[in-house]
């Protein structure tokens, strides 16, 4: 019999916390525990992501739910000595509520977690992802067992359809319907593909699910295989996710050893196995036809649909392609029922959605909220508001294919339809928050730079059109834009949307179009007034010295790397605009607030 542990110490083993030495923390904790011969009483477990990445590395002590933030390896001794041995919480490592300034010792009282409902992330930060036993202890693989022994494929598909689950990868296609289409095609071999090619800048939902709860995805793939008649599963994952790959490999090996993957699963005669396919990290390969070509060893380029992969996919066989987060929802739906799932969310968007909060927000991290919560809830309550008390300007959802939402959208309930109606999209769930210091023209340019880089070049609208869009935007940010350019941006963007071959091109102008709609004034300022109100576009910036404040101390002139500042000692200085490179060194050095930007 395994010892009954008195305490469990959970250490976050997600990529973010590992980068801040969480492995070393776990090792030090184990060492300190062993020194005190407590290894049979206290267990140290590496889990997946807790979601509170902003304050990582996270260490959580159970059963008292103590939530330590920003722990360092050298804190291990104090945690063991004070908390684990003597029962005194280490106050200096507790989370401090930014509003009340009070220390929060119990994670249940953190606002970050209070508005969340965790379905896809149900095991993330709770179990050890490298130990299948912990997944099984959380009723893991019972959904698979249930459908294999108690339900027909048709009944299972009906259940998924009834639950209202829709694809979490971006477009929101009903999952049950997708499965049904493949199930109806007759073929000697069919495939289930898990799309783990997460490519949006700033998005890390799928990675966290795979790192924190790989078995939920494997189980769902087997369920999908049973429903559609497939016996082979493939996970297309980018090679730049080494930890997720490692954990998937361990998970697959453990599931095979238990006979939960492989031949004759649970004695039911159903066989299903899963292998990994690595992507080189091309954004376009998240598009399902490109993804399939890449898996086949061909160029990662999309082809025209139809035929849809559901009918004609990998190696020409019917293939169901589902996103990681979509799959992670499936076992929970089967065990708890379609009605339960459908009771969460809005009329057309059921369940929850995982978002990766990033940008100028206090609580950068991974959250899962019911569909229909407002952006305000997400940004201010869960996200803790804007960094450094700045003013909220916009939030970018849907990555390079999405758009920017502004203050007027803050109270719109988040679901597939509403986001599209507001000119953005759900996308895979990246949410990048921007404040008054961000220039929207520059943001649009950033996303376009990404698409230009990632366009596969197969169709002209995307290859050439986006390049031209990018050139126009560059012109505007350099102060060389004209009012005609703004019209051109809009027209060209629309043409690219209408005529591109795949989802990448069809959505790539979205960041430009939505910022044109929501921040027209800012574009006009750049073009007509040659002004960037956020002070981001360097070419439009001018540093000046206010002669009234300048005492002629020469500090700025000495700091200037290009000798652009001249003037007599004790006399007001001036900046030669032709020479100035806008580095800001003078402004930093000036003690009299004499240097200002136009």
């Amino acid at each position: 019999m395994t010892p009954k542990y008195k305490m469990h110490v959970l250490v976050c083993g997600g990529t973010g916390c590992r980068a801040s030495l969480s492995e070393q923390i776990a090792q030090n904790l184990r060492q300190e525990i062993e020194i005190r011969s407590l290894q049979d009483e206290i267990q140290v477990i590496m889990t997946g992501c807790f979601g509170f990445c902003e304050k990582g590395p996270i260490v959580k002590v159970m059963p008292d739910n103590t939530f330590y933030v920003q722990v360092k390896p050298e804190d291990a001794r104090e945690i063991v000595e004070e908390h684990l041995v003597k029962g005194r919480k280490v106050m200096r490592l507790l989370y401090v509520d930014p509003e009340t300034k009070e220390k929060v010792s119990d994670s249940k009282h953190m606002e970050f977690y209070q508005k969340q409902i965790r379905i896809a992330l149900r095991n993330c930060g709770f179990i050890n992802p490298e130990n299948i036993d912990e997944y099984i202890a959380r009723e893991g693989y019972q959904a698979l067992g249930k459908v294999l022994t108690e339900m027909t494929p048709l009944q299972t598909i009906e259940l998924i359809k009834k639950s209202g689950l829709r694809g979490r990868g971006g477009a929101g296609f009903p999952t049950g319907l997708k499965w049904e289409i493949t199930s109806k095609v007759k073929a000697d071999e069919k495939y289930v593909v898990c799309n783990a090619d997460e490519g949006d800048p700033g998005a890390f939902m799928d990675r966290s699910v795979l790192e924190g709860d790989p078995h939920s995805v494997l189980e769902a793939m087997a369920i999908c295989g049973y429903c559609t008649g497939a016996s082979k599963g493939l996970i297309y994952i980018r090679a730049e996710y080494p930890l997720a790959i490692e954990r998937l490999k361990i998970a697959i090996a453990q599931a095979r050893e238990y006979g939960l993957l492989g031949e004759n699963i649970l004695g039911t005669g159903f066989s299903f196995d899963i292998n990994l396919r690595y992507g080189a990290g091309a954004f376009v390969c998240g598009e399902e036809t490109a993804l399939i070509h890449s898996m086949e060893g061909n160029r990662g380029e999309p082809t025209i649909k139809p035929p849809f992969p559901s009918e004609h996919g990998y190696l020409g066989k019917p293939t169901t392609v589902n996103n990681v987060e979509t799959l992670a929802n499936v076992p929970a739906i089967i065990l708890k029922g379609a009605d339960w799932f459908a009771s969460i969310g809005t009329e057309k968007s059921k369940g929850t959605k995982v978002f990766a909060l990033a940008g100028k927000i206090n609580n950068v991290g991974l959250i899962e909220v019911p569909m229909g919560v407002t952006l305000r809830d997400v940004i201010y309550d869960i996200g803790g508001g804007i960094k450094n008390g700045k003013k909220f300007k916009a939030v970018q959802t849907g990555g390079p294919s999405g758009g920017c939402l502004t203050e007027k959208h803050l109270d719109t309930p988040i679901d597939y339809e509403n986001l599209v109606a507001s000119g953005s999209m759900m996308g895979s769930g990246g949410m990048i928050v921007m404040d008054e210091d961000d220039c929207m023209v520059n943001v649009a340019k950033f996303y376009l730079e990404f698409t230009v880089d990632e366009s596969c070049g197969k169709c002209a609208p995307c290859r050439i059109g986006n390049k031209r869009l990018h050139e126009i935007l560059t012109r505007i940010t350099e102060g060389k834009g004209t009012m005609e350019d703004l019209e051109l941006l809009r027209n060209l963007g629309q043409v690219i949307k209408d005529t591109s071959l795949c989802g990448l091109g069809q959505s790539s102008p979205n960041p430009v179009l939505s910022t044109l709609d929501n921040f027209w004034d800012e574009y006009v300022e750049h073009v007509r007034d040659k002004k960037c109100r956020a002070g981001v576009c360097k070419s439009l910036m001018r540093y000046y010295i206010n002669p009234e404040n300048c005492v002629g101390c020469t500090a700025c002139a000495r700091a200037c790397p290009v000798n652009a500042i001249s003037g007599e000692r004790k006399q007001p200085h001036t900046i030669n605009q032709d020479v100035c490179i806008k580095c800001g060194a003078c402004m930093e050095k000036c003690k009299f607030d004499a240097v200002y930007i136009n």
Partner: protein
Amino acid sequence: MIHRIKNKRTMTKITSLADLRRKSEELKRRIDLREKSEHTENLIQVKVAMATCGIASGARETMDYLIEELDKRKIDAVVTQTGCMGYCYAEPTIEVKLPGQEPVVFGYVNTKKAKEIIEKYILNGELVDGIIPQNYQTINEKK
């Protein structure tokens, strides 16, 4: 690492849904401490004072006994350790909080006393000798 080695030894195939369910029940023990700590408000909470004074008087044995006994009797409870409660004369001391009730502190809790507390107070709500009246407020309780 340890897990992986452990798993190697015990990994036999799971051959049916019933088998899987049985295994899941068995394994639940390993993580039930984590499950329970997520919803402590509906559970019996026992805190054992484990400062130097408590440990010297045998609080560790008391705590081990409580954990084992509550587990054996399948009583849903969380046992945590806490620092010195200030009643060093009466160590080992424990605080028991039944759901929806005020916590009660017991003094001189050896394993025998612990058994009595489980049988009488925790199971039947009968008070037993050795209760220490609480004579302080903590900063958290002050409104």
